[in-house]
Structures are given as structure tokens and as C-alpha cells.
């Protein structure tokens, strides 16, 4: 049910307040955990120094572990609740935005603001933290979507636009937003995200649309949901809204990291750009290096190969990478 502007604002407000108060509550939990971990670590150090694990110590460790697990589970629940609230806020905002757009008011950004918006939306894509023995869902990280998956309006996709249609007069995979999906014609209507272009509405068949991940994968809990090094991918080239072929140099190591990739680049001697170092995002609000790639902008190797015929085998790329290091 769509909200009016006031209702939406109130809903968001409610959640923001509740999050703030939960943060205060959570602090006590966090401090307790810190203490607990310290106790366990002290016990570990002691046992390591003694050089053996007596039954008494083992029993003690077990009880410490059990207590810590219970607390961590409680902590997990609190955190998940907060994150769900944050997600709800984003959903409300997005809905509101779509509503406004359907009326005909298009928010217009200048290019820099749009790029920043893309970055934040990539960063604030929800993180999937799997419970033990659960598989990450489709569209989480590198997990491909269901074959019959239809992207919802407002979702980000990579759309293949041919030379004749394209404003830039070349074949391109561009970043676009779904406007609607026509069930009868089985075609998507998408908007080019770069609104400075004149003609930004495209009608494209399903094969020319690749939905982008809806969740980030956590390297610490679900490393399998990430593209391994050496994978050939399509990645959003820095400061543009187009996807180009690239190879994963290093997948993210923590949930804050990005992929490190090298792009195909004919201007460089070996045909590839230098691998870009990825700075920590929240180390202190550093100006982002211009080549940093957000995980959200990844699409899948298989789909690329289907559409673009002239792709080399990934092992070629792998060798190149190795020789470079």
C-alpha cells in the first residue's frame, strides 16, 4: 500500500528512533561480549602457557563457550532486527521515489551527485550473513538468479543496448533501472541510469537484461558466494555507467572490502589495466580511488559469454595475471 509523503516520513521517523534506542540497548550487550571474549582469551593463554589441557580446564572452557554462544546468539538477533529496520526504511524511501517518478517528476542529479548516489546504494546493499548450514539465496553476491526470475521495478540491472539504439553509438552493457516488465511481450522497460543522455528509455528482451545482486555476500561466513580470483566478469568501469570486461584479482576479504579487478585496456602494454588497490571504505572517509569497483555492479560471466562472442577463455586471463605479479 503506497504511503503519502507524510505517512512515509512518519514511518521512517519511527524506525529511526527505534534504531537509535536499540543501539543504546545493544551497547550493554556489546560490552558484555567484549568482557567475555577477554575472559576466554585469558583462559586460552593460560592453557597455552601450561602446555596441556586438563579436564578441569576443558570443563571450564566448555561452560565459557556455551555462555558466549548464547550471548552471541542474542546479539545476533538484536543486530538482525536493527538491520531489518534499516532495510525497511530503504524500501519505504525507494517506494516513495518510484511513486514520485510515476507521477512524472524525475529527480535530476548532476553527474557527480549521481555517481555518489550509485556508490552509496552499492555500499548500503544489505549484507547477507548466513546462519550455519544455510545456502546463500539467489542474487546474493555471485549466486545467479533463478532462470525465471523477473526483476522488480526499481531494481538495478545491466542492460545490453545495441549500437543503433545507443546514444553513444556503440554496443554497450549499461547500468539501468527496471521500470516495468511486460508479461505479454516478455520484455523489460528500463531506464538508463545516466539521465543526461537524451533517450533513456529502452524496451529490451529478457536475454538482454542481467539482474544485479540484491545482497552482498559476507566473505567471512559465505566465501562461496563470491567470485574467485581469475574469474572473468563484467564490471562497472569507474566514473562511467557502463560495464566492461574485467578479471577478479582479489575478492573482498571482509564485509567492508570491495573486489579488486583489472579491466581489459588496449592502451596498456599487456592489454590490461593495472590492478587497483582497494582502500578501506570507512577508515576515515578517504576520497574514493576512482577505480574502485563496487560489488553491486557485477554481472555474471556466463551471461556475458552468451551475448558477447569474442571473449577469450578465462585461463588466458589467469595466466596474464600470474605473469604480471
Amino acid at each position, binding site marked *: 500500500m503506497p504511503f503519502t509523503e507524510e505517512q512515509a516520513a512518519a514511518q521512517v521517523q519511527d524506525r529511526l528512533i527505534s534504531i537509535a534506542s536499540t543501539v543504546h540497548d545493544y551497547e550493554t550487550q556489546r560490552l558484555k561480549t*567484549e568482557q567475555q571474549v577477554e575472559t576466554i582469551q585469558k583462559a586460552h593463554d593460560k592453557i597455552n602457557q601450561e*602446555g596441556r589441557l586438563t579436564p578441569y580446564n576443558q570443563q571450564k572452557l566448555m561452560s565459557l563457550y556455551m555462555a558466549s554462544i548464547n550471548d552471541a546468539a542474542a546479539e545476533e538477533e538484536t543486530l538482525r532486527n536493527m538491520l531489518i529496520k534499516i532495510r525497511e526504511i530503504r524500501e519505504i524511501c525507494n517506494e516513495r521515489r518510484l511513486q514520485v517518478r510515476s507521477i512524472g517528476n524525475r529527480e535530476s542529479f548532476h553527474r557527480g551527485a549521481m555517481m555518489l548516489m550509485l556508490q552509496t546504494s552499492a555500499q548500503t546493499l544489505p549484507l547477507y550473513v548466513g546462519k550455519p548450514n544455510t545456502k546463500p539465496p539467489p542474487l546474493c553476491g555471485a549466486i545467479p538468479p533463478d532462470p525465471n526470475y523477473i526483476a522488480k521495478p526499481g531494481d538495478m540491472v545491466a542492460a545490453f543496448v545495441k549500437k543503433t539504439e545507443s546514444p553513444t553509438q556503440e554496443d554497450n552493457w549499461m547500468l539501468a533501472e527496471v521500470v516495468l516488465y511486460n508479461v505479454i511481450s516478455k520484455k523489460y522497460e528500463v531506464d538508463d541510469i545516466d539521465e543526461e543522455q537524451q533517450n533513456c528509455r529502452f524496451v529490451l528482451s529478457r536475454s538482454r537484461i542481467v539482474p544485479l545482486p540484491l545482497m552482498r555476500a559476507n566473505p567471512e561466513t559465505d566465501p562461496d558466494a563470491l567470485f574467485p580470483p581469475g574469474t572473468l566478469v563484467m564490471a562497472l568501469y569507474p566514473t562511467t555507467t557502463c560495464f566492461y570486461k574485467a578479471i577478479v584479482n582479489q575478492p573482498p576479504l571482509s564485509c567492508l572490502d570491495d573486489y579488486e579487478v583489472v579491466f581489459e585496456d588496449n592502451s596498456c602494454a599487456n592489454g590490461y589495466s593495472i590492478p587497483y588497490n582497494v582502500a578501506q571504505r570507512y577508515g576515515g572517509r578517504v576520497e574514493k580511488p576512482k577505480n574502485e569497483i563496487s560489488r553491486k555492479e557485477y554481472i555474471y560471466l556466463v551471461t556475458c559469454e552468451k551475448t558477447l562472442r569474442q571473449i577469450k577463455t578465462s585461463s588466458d586471463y589467469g595466466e596474464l595475471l600470474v605473469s604480471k605479479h
Partner: protein
Amino acid sequence: MKDQRNMESSESQDEVDFGFPPLPVVDKDKHLQCYSSVLTRAENDVLSMEELDHLQPELEMLLSAAVLRQQNLQSQIDVLSHPQDDLSQDRPWMQKKRKLNDNRVSKSMKDLLKARDNASKMSSISSSENETDNSADAVPEATSPKSNTGKLALPKNDTSNKFWASIDSYCSNITEDNIKELEQLISCCDNDMAGVKIPPVGRHYTERWAEQELAQERNLNSGRHLSNSSDSDTVSLLKKASNMCHDRSPGPLVQRLVSALLEEPTRDSFPQKISDDSENSIFLGKIPLYHTTACFERRIRRELEAAGYLDSKNKDEDDEILVEIKKCEEELKAVASLNKEHLCRLLGQAKEEMERQKVRSIMREVDEKIISIYKKAVTPKLKKKQLREKKRRQAWKLLKEREALLSRLATL
């Protein structure tokens, strides 16, 4: 640079590596800036959207740490509760640690050495337990280092050593001790076959049993009208039994003998006189005094047998215990003879095997010599030099010797 997590536990392990899991905790000062700033404000203060963008990743980080902590602790609990199983593959942080720290390798090497020490100790203990010469440790020695170096990071994996130590006593070479043991066993069998010497029945059994038998008989006869007064019954029976012993009523053999010696008493020649009590007692009084009739009976039998009047074979008067003893003895003899047969066969085989072992050890020496000659021969070949005649002859001689040994082995 990507180390956001407090990995103290993995760094502070310098004594012994128990492989405790890292417990990820997010450092508040370093990584929770937005979170901290929210905390400094009042509880009901509204967050801005921009703050939300920063708070989200921080919360995600905390969540990831909490989940990871749970996982690690759970698997550590599993490890502690099943210490025997090697669960290192279930502990992802162990593998990571090994990858990251080079000095871990040296540590795991230490573990390896320790494990190997333990293994060799264990095998020596077990072989000494089995009282076998452990000169034949060749099999476990050859396999254990291979399996250890193959999997560098598995200090707990001494299962193979245990297995080989247990199997060692069965496939090691045969020694003199083994043969001695076999011979001892055979002599044991001989003892068994000699059988048990059964002593004559002692006074206790002859007296007591006779009394009991008589009592039983009496009981059967008089049981019909005296069945209810059992106490007085046994007393009277005992009395009667002692009387029986006293008046020395003769056993069946004695009666037969006596009656055989006497002329067949007819009604005419023997009037009522013989049946007279006084007469009878005088007659029986002449029978030599033995402590019981049973003994006397046995004595008579022996005498008769010696004289050849009685066949010694039909001794079916043995009591049931003696019968049982004899039955057991027969069985024992059968088993012992079977055992002896097996043991003799085993001894023969062991001796043959000893011979073969001798040949084999000679052959091993020859093999070594041949190999050393081969090695010497290969090096000059590389330098394209001819082999000297003397060496060549020596090599041929050794090869022929080896062939001869092989054929000898085949015939053995």
C-alpha cells in the same frame, strides 16, 4: 591492512598450539565511529539518513563477528567433546592460520616430530609386550615417515602407526624364541595326554557315601509310611547305617565268593542251622577286618583279577564322578592330541621359515652388493668409460649367487 578484527588469540599463542579459534570482536574505536557517535546522543534522538548509511555497515560488521564467533565456538566445542577425531578440516581458522603464518610451519614440524616420537615409543612398547624381537620393524618404519611427510599438518595422525604396531607381531620374522615357545607348548600337550592319575577313593567318600546310599535305599523302601517325619528318619537311618558298618554285612562280591566256596546248601544236608543268626555271625567274623565293606570288596576284586578269575574290563561299578572324570580325561586327550598335531605342524613350518629367512638375509646382502656395484658401474658409464673386467666378473658372480639363492628359496 585488512585486519579489522581483533585476532589476539591467534597471535598470542607462543607456547603450545591448541588451535583455539579466533573470537572476532569489532574494535569500537577503530571501526564503530558512527555507532559511537549515536551512543553519545540521547536515546530518543532521531538519526539522519546519512548516519544510517554509515551505521548500517558497522552493524553488519558486528553481526558478521557475532555469527562467526558462534560458529567458531560451536566447532571448538565439537572438537573438545571429541578429542580423538581430527577435526582440523572443520576448523577453517586453522587452515587460514597456516597459510598466513610461516612460523606455523616450523611449529607443525615440531608437532610432527613429537607425534613420530610417540609412535615409535608406542610401537616399541607393544612389541616388547609381545615378547618379540623388534628387529623386524621394517614395515612400520618404512611406512610411518612417508605418511607423515605426505600430510605435513596432521600431527594427530598416528592411527597408521598404531595399526602397524598391532600387526607387527603377526608378520615379523620368526625367531628362536618363537620356536622355543612352540616346543614348550608341545610338551604341555604331552602332559595333558598322559592323563590325570586318579587316586583311590578316600575314607571320607567310602564311608559317607556308603551311608548315604544306604540311607537313600532305606528311604525309598520305608518312604511310603515314614515320609512325614524326615528329621527322625535321617537320624534313624544314620544309626542303621552305622549298624550296617558294624555288623559288616558283606558286599555282593563277597557273598558270591562265599557262596561259591560253600557247597550248594540243599534242604536235606543243611537243616535250619545255617540260617541261624549266631552261626552266621561266627562265619562272617572270620572275614578280615577292613574299615568298610566297600574296601574289602575292592580288595577281593583285586585279588580275583590277579588270579585271573574276574575280567578286569567289566568295571562298570565306577561311581558317576569317576565316570565323569574319565570322560573329561578322554576329551582332554583328544583335544591335546589335536593341539599337538597342529603345533608340530606349526613348528615344522616355523623351522622351514627360519631356513628361508636365513636365505633371504643372505640374499639381501647380495642385493646390496649388487646395487653398490651397479652404482659404481653407472657413474663411469656416464663418463663413457668401460667397466673393468674384475668388477664385471664380480658382478656376474653375485648375480649368479643370487639366482642360486632364489632357486633354493623356491625349493624350500
